[in-house]
């Protein structure tokens, strides 16, 4: 019986080599971010940059604050009572955390796709078109709907029933519809909070492919607890882990952030290595 540990993750090679980080354009510059729910820290001391036109993956075990962190990036946590955050998040150099910053404008530029597909109880067409109309995009609605649905790899499946209720679609189709809805309003960044966690492998593959195809136009930040997924789609990967303090306190923190190849083949932190090789306790 062999006792060698097979590497559980193989990094695909179709990704183009990344230019050096100094030459990449920063979209987010996050400094010392703490996210706190009613006095209990969920994430502490995150400092990282997110680069333009790359897919950045956030991986880590359950409860490490991945979702909380990504929701800080477009002020989605504003809606949660008792939530506070400290530190700064600069978006294209502008602080977006202040109370004088309009959260609606932030979200207009930084869209979001959620863990569970949440289409509006409207028709397929209206799901994509409603946001555009409300946000003031009024010309060529039909062409834009078609483009967004095509980009989300859904057009061929729904082009004959655009009037049908979005709720009649399968889970994977609903999630791709949500992605179409998010990119139809032409945001700058698309945040994805475990977009494939409720999907089967084929739908997952479709979503990964669309990220790969669309990253020349958008910047993606994706939370995933699926390491293979991060290895497949991400250019940069951030590994979060859980830290324990006194009195049973626990919070998430950023352990390592680097090019995906590096994280999965030569991590510099022991915790990262344990996690990506499946030895995480």
């Amino acid at each position: 019986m062999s006792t060698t540990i097979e590497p559980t993750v193989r990094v695909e090679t179709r990704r183009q080599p990344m230019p050096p980080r100094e030459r990449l354009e920063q979209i987010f510059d996050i400094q010392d971010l703490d996210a706190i729910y009613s006095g209990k820290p969920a994430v502490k001391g995150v400092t990282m940059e997110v680069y333009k036109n790359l897919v950045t993956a956030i991986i880590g075990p359950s409860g490490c604050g991945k979702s909380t962190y990504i929701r800080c990036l477009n002020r989605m946590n504003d809606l949660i009572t008792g939530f506070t955050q400290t530190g700064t998040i600069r978006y294209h150099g502008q602080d977006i955390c202040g109370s004088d910053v309009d959260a609606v404008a932030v979200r207009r530029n930084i869209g979001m796709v959620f863990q569970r597909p949440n289409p509006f109880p409207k028709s397929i067409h209206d799901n994509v078109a409603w946001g555009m109309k409300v946000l003031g995009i009024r010309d060529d609605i039909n062409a834009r709907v078609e483009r967004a649905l095509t980009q989300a790899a859904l057009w061929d499946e729904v082009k004959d029933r655009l009037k049908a209720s979005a709720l009649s679609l399968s889970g994977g189709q609903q999630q791709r519809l949500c992605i179409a809805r998010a990119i139809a309003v032409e945001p700058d960044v698309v945040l994805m909070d475990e977009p494939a966690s409720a999907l089967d492998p084929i739908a997952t593959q479709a979503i990964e492919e669309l990220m790969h195809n669309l990253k020349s136009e958008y910047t993606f930040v994706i939370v995933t607890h699926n390491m293979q997924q991060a290895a497949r789609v991400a250019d940069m990967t951030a590994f979060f882990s859980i830290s324990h303090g006194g009195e049973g306190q626990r919070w998430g923190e950023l352990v390592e952030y680097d090019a995906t190849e590096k994280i999965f083949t030569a991590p510099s932190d022991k915790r990262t290595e344990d996690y990506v090789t499946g030895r995480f306790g």
Partner: protein
Amino acid sequence: MSAQEVQRSVLRVEGLARRKAVNRTMELLAWVSALIAVAILGIVVYSVARRGLPALNLDLLTKDPIPFSLTNQPQGLRNAFVGTLVIVSLATLMALPFGILVAIYLNEFAPASIRNVVTMVLDILNGVPAIVIGIFVFGLFVVGHGQSGWAGSFALACLMLPLVARSTMEVLALVPNSLREASLGLGVARWRTTLSIVLPQTIGGILTGTVLAVARVAGETAPLLFVSSFVGTKTSWNPLHALQSIPVAIFELSESPDPADHARAWAAAFVLLMFILFASLGARWLATRSRRKIMGR
């Protein structure tokens, strides 16, 4: 030891017979209580129907009353039916927008501390006796100005407001947060999200609450005695004057010496009861339908 004996000894429990007896008694008590609750409604409906049905005819709805009539001229309670229609419609127009706005504020915008306080205030308002509301409106609008239909509407609206607001809050809470997040995540403002995404989900539920509130206040007598009861026998649609209403008419007719008046009071009571029964049933139907719609089934 036979298999049966083994089983018996394994399953033996201390005081089992007594437990079974207690269990059976409690179950029976609960069952009888439920039966009595149903029976009370049945008896009320039956007795009102038995006395009201003989006097129920078209004249009741289409003819005005003739006071101290010594002839057998056909007469009815048209003024009361029209009055109730006007008063309750106006009350609904007043209470509905306020109730919905209160619910939207509390459920969508208010911080938890304010929401808890105002919800409690609504529950207290819901528990305020109707006669107290009547005195309040009497002091506010009737003293120095005289009775009027719209003062009656205002009193009923005060009673409807907490009912509409609470039932709207309940359906708003049923709308999944993921829908709000979907809209906000697109960069849509909160008011727009509430108006275009959340509210359309709740229309059925709001309608249900409104119908129940209407059914509840249509039978209110106490506040109307104070603010809209000195009325003539002519039908009037003008809420600036005091308007007759069904409950007040029933109350007044019941004090009349004429047995024909009593019969008409019973008939009016029967109509009111039927309206409330069917409104409640319709509301239940609407509620299940809209709940199913929100849950996406």
